């Protein structure tokens, strides 16, 4: 049993997009804050801090989760993926990024990292999805700009069970 004391910072380390990272966190430090302000991975956004909007979605051990509802200390030893890790090593867009670009699936881009990480966790399953399934999978992500059609089309381009016009 490990007890982390309030007010004192302890080291937290995990794999971020394939690279070991570490930093210092208080017991109460949120994973979202830790990623953004301690590690400097500010591509993950925060828009509600009560678990409803999905902007902070990251992939932990292969599963999409809300980083505002997780403590940094709980990430110890985990494998975390964020928006910064999506592009290929030569900096070119991956399929989802590319589809978002071609479909005009983002406007302000604030919700986009969370949506891409949610979809990217689906991509790992290797399954193909119907439009209702995609819409349901995105029901935990709010976008205020787009109206979602373009996002759903982009997702279907990559994950869908049919070709979209």
């Amino acid at each position, binding site marked *: 049993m490990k007890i982390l004391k309030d*007010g004192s910072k302890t080291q937290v380390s995990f794999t971020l997009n394939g690279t070991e990272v570490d930093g210092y966190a*208080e017991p*109460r*430090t949120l994973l979202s804050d830790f990623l*953004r302000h301690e590690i400097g*991975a*500010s*591509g*993950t*956004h*925060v*828009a*509600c*801090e*009560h678990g*409803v*909007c999905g*902007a902070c979605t990251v992939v932990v051990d292969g599963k999409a989760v809300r980083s505002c509802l997780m403590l940094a200390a709980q990430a110890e030893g985990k494998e975390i993926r*964020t*928006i*910064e890790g*999506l*592009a290929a090593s030569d*900096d070119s*867009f991956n399929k989802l*990024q590319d589809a*978002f*670009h*071609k479909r*005009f699936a*983002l*406007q*302000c*881009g*604030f*919700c*986009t*990292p969370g949506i*891409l990480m949610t979809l990217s966790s689906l991509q790992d399953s290797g399954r193909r999805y119907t439009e209702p399934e*995609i*819409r*349901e999978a*995105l*029901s*935990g*992500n*709010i*976008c*205020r*700009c*787009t*109206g*979602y*059609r*373009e*996002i*759903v089309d982009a997702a279907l381009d990559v994950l869908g069970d049919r070709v979209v016009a």
Partner: protein
Amino acid sequence: MVGAAAHADEDKYVGRRMLRVEDQTLLRGRGKFMDDLPVAKGTLHAAFLRSPHPHARIVSIDVSEALKQKGVKAVVTGEDIRPYTKPLIVGFENPMDYRGIALNKVRYVGEPVAVVCATDRYRAEDALKYIRVEYEPLAAIVDPVAACADDAPVLHDEVGSNRVSRRVFTHGEPEAAFAASDRQTEITIRYPRNSITPMETYGIVAEYQPDTGGYDVTSNFQGPFSVHAVMAIALKVPGAKLRHRSPPNSGGSFGAKLTMFPYIVVLSVCARLAGRPVKWIEDRLEHLSSSSVAPNRVTRIRAAYDADGTINALRMEHFDDHGAYLRAPMPAPIYRMHGLSTNCYRIPNVEVINNICMTNKCPTGAVRGFGGPQLYFAIERVIAQVAKDLGRDPLDLMRQNLIQADQFPYRAPAGALIDSGNYQQVVADTVDQGGLEELKARRDAARAEGRLYGIGYAMAVEPSQSNMGYISTLKTKEEREKAGPKDGAVASCTISVDPLGSVSVVGDSTPQGQGHQTTLAQIVADELGVPFEMVTVNLETDTQKDNWSIAAGNYSCRFSPASTSAAKTAAERVRRKMALIASRFMNVPPEDLLFKDGWIAAQSNPENRMEFRRVGGLAHWSPSSLPEGMDPGIREVAYWNAPELTPTTAKDEINTSLAYGFAFDFCGVEVDRDTGELRIDRYVTAHDCGTILNPGLAEGQIRGSFASALGASLYEEFVYKSDGTFLSGTFADYLIATAHEAIDPVMVDTVATPSPFTRLGAKGIAEGNQYTTPVCLANAVADAIGRQDITVPLTPAKVFEWVNGEEEPAPQAAAEDEAEDLIDYSGDALRGQGSTFVPASAEQVWQTLMDPAEMAAIIPGCKSLDKQADDHFTGVVSMGVGPVKGTFEADIRLENLKKPRSADITGSLIGALGTSRGRGRVTLVEGEGGVTVSYEYSIHLSGTVASVGGRLLSGAARALVNQFFRALVRRAAPEAKSEGGGLMRRLRARLGGKK
């Protein structure tokens, strides 16, 4: 799809679906939003203490304990801010003293009361609960019409009335027209409070510079920059000493990031007092309770018309509810629409009465649509009602009264100079492509089966690029004359060509995701004949270095008409200059030169050409080669203004906007009788917004606007109880449609009538569905269920009651139980009543209830209870249900003691989670084997608990009452066997479930 009709010129970028340059940054997570910017070491983080009360006098604020907390460097109150500021002015003279933080009164739940500046945000929040504020609660008012009554509690004593402005406008001869018309129809509409709550909240870093006496602020403020002047005046510095910068990216605004400027003023002073930069990122709870909302409105609207359907006049009285304060440019929304008080119809006479009302709610601000949704809800509902009253097809009636294609530019009676359009064509295309006839057949089929199905229509003139002078319409002619004219709308753009010949564009449009970088690059690349990639657009703003005007910013669809015009103008100037340089080298007149594909070539002899970048380079590397008198370098600034935007006339007519698009929607909706849910069978929307600059972006704006309008129609509302308690405090209360709920509208390919008044013929496009969708759906529901009074959001519970009669009564047997444990949070207060049997004598129970030591053991979570007098107790309770717990200071008084029969109890609980004030009565009735203790109470709850926990409050109250009575039985009758289980157990026992 949009824009297919406006065939793009193959050679041009404008009109093409150019992919967004912004995406390269954003899709990699490399955007630089406000909270991503690095800050100086030592920067403090702010947290706000906010009012739990809708209306109260501040008796005292004690920050001494808070200052002692770890990491806290400053705690700032309204009184601390006062010496460094002047009140924030608005568009007309009034004595309201507003500086962004409460001075001696709080006027809405969530109003800033104090600011803690600490070394990090966590610690800043830690200190909030150590600030002690003593309030004297006052009666609150939330309804704008009631607020105008003489006996309503007044928010601003110095104003003396909650109606801070009333103006009566008469355009044409409405009175005569009403008298002469065959018929009249009147309805009253209520438009709710909503907003589009951008995903990124407000963010500000403010610094005071003692060396210059100025302030340096970075924030995601969206403009209009006229408000920069308001801030500088409030901070008592010259404009140039208030440097405002904006970050490269902004996560949406939809108007919300206009009224953040009071926070900039407050935080600037905080930084000054703390002696360090101060950063604040608004959190979502703060955003929902106290950032910015659209004014809710009550409108009584009356139409006068002839039997043949010709509408002769409208008369409308608006009660526009701006909440607790007016913040510039409020009450702008109602005036922004003034010129369009007759929408798209040829109605020559109109009377408009504008009442601007103050209530105990969050102050208002800009929200996409800016006054349009409220106005058009009234007009389009009354038109639908007129059709119904005449027994006419609504669309037929609308068509009959539409402005004709040959009437443009059309001067509407209230002053709008509607530039261009072909409304008939848009309607015809929409009816055709949207399949109206088929939809009607579906409606008829559904109705034949007894289902509730309706069709709704709505039209709207979509204004874009506001006249900066329209708000002056609020003033009387005399006041306007005194103040001097206000008009126009300036946009600026700066274009440079660097020594290597690449092109930089700097604009003043502070975008929040609309793709302005892409569009400006398209326009400039076309004008200069260079590849799109060669143009770099930077839209960060810096008021000390960049060109800007009071109109700068991103609002009211300003970009497409105005910012693009400025860009085109600046690019033309660059081209002219470069043509002059090239002409000298190429020996051809500048008029002969064509800019294309990165070359400047003589049209008369295409072989004779120079590379664009070489010509650009010459201006830097060799000033001596330039034509005589020409300045070296290439940097052209254009300030563009529209002469059509003239000041308000003596008769109060105002051309409120520059370019006017048109939207027409219809939809088919089915109402589920059993659940009250709506199924939108089909939604069709058409927009003529002039030249389409980039169809990909245009469609995104339409779909985005539609989705938020759908939200406003079905889900979104900031709900206040009549006592001023705020209930929509989280994203689980203020609901936003997700991909699962959002439906796709059918988008019609229709005419694009360019605006003659904008350089590219473009008009705004981003707000149309804000205007049409709520009322289109409301009209469909009205048609489906045959009801006149329709309010949005169309929640299932509300619609259910509209379509179903009285509820089936309770069966006889159940009615008897009803007296027990009723807790109700539907009215203004949480009310409860019930009774419990205690197997002890009345004397014993009375003793227990009157003994502070006993009570301390009974009151759930009571830590201490001291007797101040026989009938007055104070103490501390740590109360809650499950994990939700707060510590409260309790103050309890007993009145009307009738030993051992009854007592009245009044009291209050005050804590960081909120406050509650209540009164109750306990009655003891002796019976066989014990006493029945009956109670009733009503409690006004306010603050965090009420705003975020509404769904669970009555249950939580019941849980606490249960705990209390179980403890009472234990203390008053220690021998008695505990029944255990409380209400749920009794309930289940009655229901015959397993014991």
